[in-house]
C-alpha cells in the first residue's frame, strides 16, 4: 500500500501554489461577491492556467488537454477548492460540460464549444433543477417543442448558479410525454443572450451568484444546439452528477482552514475551552477520513468506473465534515465570526465566515445528503 500521490503530483501542487501566490490577491475568497473585480481576477487566472496548460489538465490530449492522471486532477481540485476556487464559475465547463460534449457531442459541437472552454474564455451554467423538480429531477417539466429544424423551450429553472455570469447554459427539458420521466429528457446548449431567456438573481445567505432563477419564454434553440439523441439526456445528466460527486474537494479547504486558524490564533488556540479543542481535534480526524474516502473513490476511477456507493459514502463524509469544520472554527473566533470579507480585520480575511455560510448548503447542493445515504444504504443492503 502506498498513499503517496507521487513526485509529479507534489511538484504540481507546488506549481499551483506558486501560481496562486503570484496571480491572486492575498487571501482571495473567490469570484462570487458583489465586487466585479473578484470575477475579473478569476477570469484572468483561468487564462494564466490555460497558458500553463493547467486549465484542461484532466482533458484528453486530442481536445487540447494534458491528459493528466486522476491523481493530478485530484491535486488540482484540492488546491483550487482549498483556495476558494480561483477558477470561479469556469469549473463547471471544465469538470462536466466539456467532458459531456467530448463524449456525446457532434464533431461540430466539439469544434465550437470545446476550444473556448479550454482557453478559459467562457462560463457555463447548469439548468437542471426546477421549482417542482429538486431531488426528483426526472419529474422536470420545462417543455421543448419541435420548431422546424430546431426547438422552442418554455418553462422555468431555479437555483441556477452563475447564470448572470454565464455565456451558455445546459438546459434539461422534456421532449417526451409528460409521464416519460427519465426517458423523455433532452439537453440543449443555449446561449444566455438568446431572446426569451431571463436570469434573475435570488438574494441568499450564500452570497451573490450562487442562486438564480431562469425563465424560458419561447426560447428558440438552433439545430446544432441539441445533445443527441433526443430523449437521451438522462444518461448525460447522470454522468454530470457523477462528476460532481467527486468534483469538489471540500476536505482540502477544511484542512487549510483548520491549520491556518490554529496558527492565526496563536496562543489563544491552546486557551480555547477544552470541549471546543476536542471538537477541533475530531474535525481534523474527520477531514483526514473524508480525504481518504475520496481517494478510495478516485482509485476506483483510476482503474475503471466511479462506484456510486463509494462516491456517495465519500460525499456524506465530506459534506458533513465541511459543516462540522465551519461550526468549530466559527466558535473558535468568537465575536469575530460576524466579520466577512469586507471587514479589514476579519480572521483569515473572512475565510471562516465565508466557509461557514457556504458549508450550510454542502448537504443540499449537487444532490442532497439524503440522496447519498439512499445510495449507500442500497449498496449495504443489496450486497448482503
Amino acid at each position, binding site marked *: *500500500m*502506498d*498513499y*503517496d*500521490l*507521487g513526485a509529479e503530483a507534489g511538484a504540481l501542487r507546488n506549481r499551483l*501554489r506558486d501560481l496562486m501566490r503570484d496571480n491572486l490577491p492575498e487571501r482571495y475568497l473567490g469570484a462570487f461577491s458583489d465586487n466585479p473585480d473578484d470575477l475579473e481576477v478569476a477570469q484572468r487566472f483561468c487564462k494564466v492556467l490555460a497558458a500553463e496548460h493547467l486549465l484542461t489538465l484532466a482533458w484528453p490530449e486530442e481536445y487540447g488537454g494534458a491528459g493528466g492522471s486522476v*491523481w493530478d486532477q485530484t491535486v488540482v481540485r*484540492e488546491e483550487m477548492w*482549498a483556495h476558494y476556487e480561483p477558477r470561479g464559475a469556469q469549473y463547471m465547463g471544465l469538470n462536466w460540460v466539456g467532458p459531456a460534449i467530448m463524449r456525446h457531442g457532434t464533431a461540430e459541437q466539439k469544434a465550437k464549444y470545446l476550444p473556448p472552454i479550454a482557453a478559459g474564455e467562457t462560463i457555463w451554467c447548469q439548468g437542471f433543477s426546477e421549482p417542482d423538480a429538486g431531488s426528483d429531477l426526472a419529474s422536470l417539466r420545462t417543455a421543448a417543442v419541435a420548431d422546424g429544424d430546431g426547438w422552442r423551450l418554455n418553462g422555468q429553472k431555479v437555483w441556477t448558479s452563475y447564470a448572470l455570469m454565464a455565456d451558455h447554459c445546459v438546459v434539461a427539458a422534456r421532449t417526451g410525454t409528460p409521464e416519460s420521466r427519465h426517458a423523455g429528457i433532452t439537453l440543449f446548449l443555449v446561449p444566455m443572450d438568446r431572446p426569451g431567456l431571463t436570469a434573475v438573481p435570488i438574494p441568499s445567505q450564500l452570497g451573490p451568484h450562487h442562486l438564480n432563477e431562469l425563465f424560458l419564454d419561447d426560447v428558440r434553440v438552433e439545430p446544432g444546439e441539441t445533445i443527441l439523441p433526443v430523449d437521451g439526456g438522462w444518461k448525460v445528466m447522470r454522468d454530470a452528477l457523477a462528476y460532481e460527486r467527486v468534483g469538489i474537494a471540500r476536505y*482540502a479547504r477544511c*484542512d*487549510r482552514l*483548520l*491549520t*491556518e486558524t*490554529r*496558527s492565526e490564533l496563536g496562543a489563544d*488556540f*491552546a486557551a480555547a475551552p*477544552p470541549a471546543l*479543542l*476536542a471538537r*477541533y*481535534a*475530531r474535525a*481534523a*480526524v*474527520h*477531514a*483526514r*477520513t*473524508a*480525504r*481518504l*474516502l475520496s*481517494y*478510495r473513490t478516485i*482509485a476506483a476511477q*483510476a482503474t475503471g468506473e466511479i462506484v456510486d456507493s463509494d462516491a456517495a*459514502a465519500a460525499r*456524506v*463524509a465530506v459534506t458533513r465534515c465541511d459543516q462540522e469544520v465551519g461550526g468549530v472554527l466559527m466558535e473558535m473566533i468568537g465575536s469575530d465570526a460576524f466579520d466577512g470579507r469586507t471587514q479589514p480585520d476579519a480572521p483569515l480575511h473572512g475565510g471562516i465566515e465565508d466557509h461557514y455560510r457556504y458549508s450550510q448548503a454542502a448537504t443540499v447542493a449537487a444532490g442532497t445528503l*439524503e440522496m*447519498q*445515504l*439512499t445510495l*449507500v*444504504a*442500497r*449498496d*449495504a*443492503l443489496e450486497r*448482503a
Partner: protein
Amino acid sequence: MNLDLPDEVLELARSVDRAVADAGSVDLTRAAELDPSVRTSVAAPIVAALGLADLDVTADADAAVAGAEVCRVAGNHAFPFPLAAMLAGQHLESGHQLGLVGPGHPRVDHGDLGHWLVADTSGSRFRATPVAEPLGSKLGPFVVDVALEPLPGPLAPAELALALDLVSFTILGYVERARALAVEHVTTRVQFGQTLSKFQGVRFQIADVSVLERGLRELARFTISRVLSVAPDDAMADSLALRVAALEAATEVFRVAHQLHGAVGFCDEHDLSILSRHVQPLVRLPVALEATTQLLVDSITRSPFDSLFSAAAGA
C-alpha cells in the same frame, strides 16, 4: 498511490479467518466465558498453528499491515485471545505481550495469560503481573487487575503507536461484524408485512454506520501503512486520531446495531450481545474516547495535525 492490500496479507487474513471460524467463531468466545482455560487450550494453539508467533510487525510496512489485518479478523469473531498485545510485544521481548494502561488502577485484558510488558500513554514502561483472576464480569470477562513494576527508559513512540493501531484494527473487526449483523437482521426480520430494510428510517441508519465503517477502514489502513516511516510525533498523532475514529465508530455502530435488532440483540444467544460486551475492554483500555481526544488535543497544541496544509504552516 496504491490502496490495495498486498496479496500475502489477504491470504494470511483469509487463513486466520478460516481457522477461527472453524473453531466456532463467536461460539469459541462463549465457551471461553464459561471456561477461561479455553483461551489457552483452544485459542492459543490456533495462534501458534498460524505461525503468528513469528510475525515481526516492525519488520516493514507490509508486516505491520499484515499484523493489523490479523487483528481485524480476530475482531470479526471476538476471538478470546490478546492477539494485538502479542503482535505488539513479541519483538520487544521474546514471549511477551505489550499492554497499554491508563490512569487509575491498572487493568489488562487477558492479563492472566503469559508475560506482560505494559506502557502508559506517555510511554513509561512497566512489567505487569496479575494480582487476581479475570473479573468474569459482563463487560470485562477477561479483564485482570495487575501490579506494575517500573522499567527504565520509555517505549519508543512508534512502538506505542503500533500497539494502539493494532487495537484499533481489532475494534474495526468488531465494527464490521456488528454492521453485518445489523444488515442481516433488517433484511430478514419482517414487521408490518415487510422486511425492516424497506423502511427509510432503517435504511438511513444502515447508511450512517456504513459510512462510519468505511471511513474507519480507510483511516486505519492509511495509519498502519505509515506508522513505521513517519516522524515519531506524527506516528503518535496518527494513532490517537485512529483511536478517536475507532471509538466514535464503535459507539455508534453498536448503538445502531442494538437498536435495529430490538430485544433479541441483548440475548447472549445472539452474537451481537457477545460482540458488544467483549469490545468494551478494547474501547475503555487504556483510555476511552474523551481522554483519547484530550491526548490528541495535546499533540495538536504542540504541533499541527499532519494534513494537506500543515507543512505550509510550518510545524
